[in-house]
Structure formats: structure tokens, C-alpha cells
């Protein structure tokens, strides 16, 4: 999809550069193949998505920590009808909640590599990064072979 040619307010992907966001490190780590998030140095809570202040204790001393790159499908579906602008060509795409390692963190993601009819709850998936055509990077998961 061409994010570069779409008006910003119709672009789903977050702005990644430090000019626009204080969580630019997330995307720098992602470029290096790492899925990271913030952890509060005061109360120890791990956030998703990354934050600049802890929603639990409101502390602002946060550290970047790695999340597992692998997980299992907790629930899933597919996008057949009613896809948003810019995703019309993705009909049939699988999405799901991925339970990351043993963290009990479940994040919602696009999942590539198999059709809806071929997958089951509990299937193993792993992180996959991909380039957006204007130089940004983002993540999804793919089924483990």
C-alpha cells in the first residue's frame, strides 16, 4: 500500500521518526528485528503499546525491554468484507491475537502465510517486519513452518 501518497489522516501507520514521536526507539529496534516495549522502572509494569509515562504509577522513568519474537494464536479471524480504504486489496487476510511467549501479553496483528481455513487456535507464529514504501517499518506475524 502506498502510504507516501495518502493524506496523513487516511494513513493507518504511525509516524515513526523522532520528529513526530517520543517512541521512535520502538521503530529503530523493529528495524533491527527486535519487538520491544516500555517497562516502568518504578513499579515494574510492562506496557503495550509503548508509553512515555506509566499508566499504572505515572512514573516517567521507563526502560526499553525485548518482547518474545514468537507466540501462539489465541483467537483469529479473517477480513473478507468491509475492508478500510487502502486495505481493499487485502481481502482474505488473517488477523488474530498472538500470545507472546510466556508473557500473557496478547497483541493484535495481521498474520501471514496461511489461509483462514488452514489455521487453528494455538498455532505457532513468529515476528515478521516489513518495509512501508516511504521508508517506515512495521510488524506483523507469520506462521512458523
Amino acid at each position, binding site marked *: 500500500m502506498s502510504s507516501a501518497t495518502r493524506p496523513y489522516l*487516511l494513513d*493507518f*501507520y*504511525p509516524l515513526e521518526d523522532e520528529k513526530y514521536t517520543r517512541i521512535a526507539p520502538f521503530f529503530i529496534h523493529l528495524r533491527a528485528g527486535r519487538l520491544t516495549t516500555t517497562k516502568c522502572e518504578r513499579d515494574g509494569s510492562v506496557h*503495550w*503499546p509503548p508509553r512515555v509515562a506509566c499508566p499504572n504509577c505515572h512514573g516517567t522513568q521507563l526502560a526499553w525491554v525485548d518482547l518474545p519474537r514468537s507466540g501462539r494464536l489465541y*483467537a*483469529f*479471524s*479473517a*477480513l*473478507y*468484507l*468491509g*475492508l*478500510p*480504504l*487502502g*486495505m*481493499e486489496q*487485502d481481502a482474505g*487476510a488473517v*488477523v*488474530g*491475537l498472538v500470545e507472546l511467549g510466556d508473557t500473557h*501479553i*496478547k*497483541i*493484535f*496483528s*495481521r498474520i501471514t502465510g496461511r489461509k*483462514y481455513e488452514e489455521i487453528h*487456535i494455538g498455532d505457532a507464529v513468529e515476528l515478521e517486519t516489513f518495509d512501508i514504501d516511504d521508508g517506515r517499518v*512495521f510488524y*506483523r506475524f507469520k506462521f512458523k513452518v
Partner: protein
Amino acid sequence: MRKVALVGGGLSTWGVRSATWGELVQEAGSQLFATTRNLDAKSIDSLFVGAAQPERLAFQSHVAPMVAELLGVKPSRFIRRVELACASGQTAIHDAYAAIASGLSDVALVVGIEKMNLPSMPEATTAMANVLDRAWDGVHGGTAPPFFAMVAQRHMLEYGTTAEQMAAVSVKNHRFANSNPTAQFYSKTFSKEKLLSGPFVSPPLRIGDCSSMTDGAGAVLLVGEELAKNYTDTPAWVVATSQYSDFHNLANMPSLTDWVGLRKAAHDLYARGRTEPTQISLAEVHDCFTISEIVEYEGLGFCPKGEGGRFVSDGQSDLGGQVVVNPRGGLLGCGHPLGATGVGQAVEVLGQFQSTVAGSRLVKGATQALTHNLSGSANVHTLTLYRRAN
């Protein structure tokens, strides 16, 4: 606090309408003025407009003064738009209730409105994908259908709920809509077989499991206790309200199948209204998808956890059952013009108490009703309790 009465209601026709955002507002407003005795625009001191996404769907913001002008109202106490996605309309009613109960307003107009059918449907569905956490969930294609599809998948796995039980919700609500001339699916045939052979939107949800993109508006009038008799002999008394919100990003949801926030909001509503689930005659609940209504039976305490599928297939949510759910036709039968839905539910409660709705959906002797909207990924629940007697 002062007691608050809902004394009048009007609706536009809901559906795929050849009408603009403002024209729908005028249709609903005209109905309210035509059917509410002694209603004079000059007596309305406050206006609350429930509208979810006029910026995206009608390219218009600052809509409250637009509505005031369209309906000839000059608010002097409160004028504002209220936004809470699919619960915008009911939340606007809550604000009017609070304003009147506090004594800061005497006569408040609530308008709920959404114009969703655009020449480009993907543009309209884009406005649905930013209801979830756009940069982290919406970006992957997270809109309502795949989210509620996962709810259905897990509810089927954990509790044995079936596609046939989900279809029973849609069949019931479409049957009720057939007696509601303002409903999107009025006079349209619908059957379980048709639903179960229809295309998937997001499996296991088929098109008949999903509420529609709808154009529609509604208007209701709320007044202080001492003014109610000017407008009607039979108001719907607003007894209690509640809301609860416990997450936003899908990663922070406590459970797909046990809506903790709904149980909390329902508990608060019953406590504030000094009542319990078995005392509710009718419930207008948020059946944006068939599975939603099933989970809501459980969250509202109408049946034990996991038995929502059996509750509908046993007829317990139909006329003659334990509680009549969605006699208006629900979101499945009426359509779901986001900001208008909660207002449409309130209009139904008033019509039920006044026995002005069609006999085929009348809940005879109804004394107590609740309305429920979820919004987003069921991460907010909004409830109102109404009583026929003060």
C-alpha cells in the same frame, strides 16, 4: 437530585437514505415536534447532539450549532456534541439527564445522528477502523467485524455456543424490525437458512450476524419532574445511569468472552435503581453482532455465564420469555447509525411504556426497561434504567 422524565421522541426513517446528515436531523426533529404536545422550541434551554464521526462521514465539525439552527432552537444553558463512538446517542442522553437532575437545565433536547452510506464504502469503513487503537490495532485491519468474530470464536470454544444460536438472535430481531416502520429491515424477509448460507464478513460471522451501515437520526426530549405533565401523561422516568471503561488497546482487554466492564456497569445500574435483572421487562441492548447480544445476556445477569446461546434458542429473550430483548428490532434489524442508535432505543422504551408501538412487538405491562450500548471493542458500556411509574 431532581427526577428526570423522557417525555417525547421522534425518528427519521433509518436505512440507506437519499438524504444528507442535516436532512436526517430535520426529519427526526420534525417527528419529535409533531408528536410531543405543547413542545415549543423556545422552551428548550439545552441541546446535546450524539454524533460519532461527522468529521469523517459528513466532513463537518462543530455540528451542535448546525443542529440548533436546523431545528430552530437557541440553547441558553448547554449546547454541545457528545462523542463516544457507538454509544454517542445514549451518552448524550446521560448528559441531558445530569444537566436536568442537577437543576442547571429544565428542558433538554437530545439528537442522535449518523450518515454512514457514502459513495465510497471503504472511506466509511475507514472511519470504523479508527474507533479501535488505530496505530496498533486498526493498522492491522482491526475493525469491529474481526474483533467480534474473535469473541464469537472463543465463546464457541469455551461455552459451546453455536452458529444456529447466534442466528436465532438475528432472526428474532429481524422479526421485530418487521413491525417497526422506521427500521432498515422493515418489511424485508429474513430467515435462519438465509443467514447461515450468506457470505462471511469475518468468520465465523456472516453478513446476517452483522448490523448494517445505516443513515438515521433520532430526537428525544427530557425535562424536570414538575414539567413532565405538560408534555405527556406517560413519561419514561430516567431512574439510573451507569458507565464503565476498563481498556482501550486490545492487548489490555481482560477477557474476550467475559465482559468485565459490562458486569460492573450492570451491577452499578441495578444498585442505583434498587432493582435486579429479573425485574427488567424489556432491554434494548447493543446487538452490533449476534454474538454481542449473547454475551450481553450474560453480562447483564439475565442468565449464567456461558448460557447466552441457550437463553436465546430457548426463547427466553423473546415475547413470553424472561425478558424481551430488542423488541425495536435491535441494531441488526433497525440498522446502526452510530450516534442515533442510543436515541432510537430510548424512543422505543417510551413507545413501549405508552403502548404506541405495534402490537406484535408490544411488551404488555412493561414497567421497567434498560438500554445498553457498548462502544469500540466493548471497552465501554453505557446503561440507562427507565421506569413507567415515578
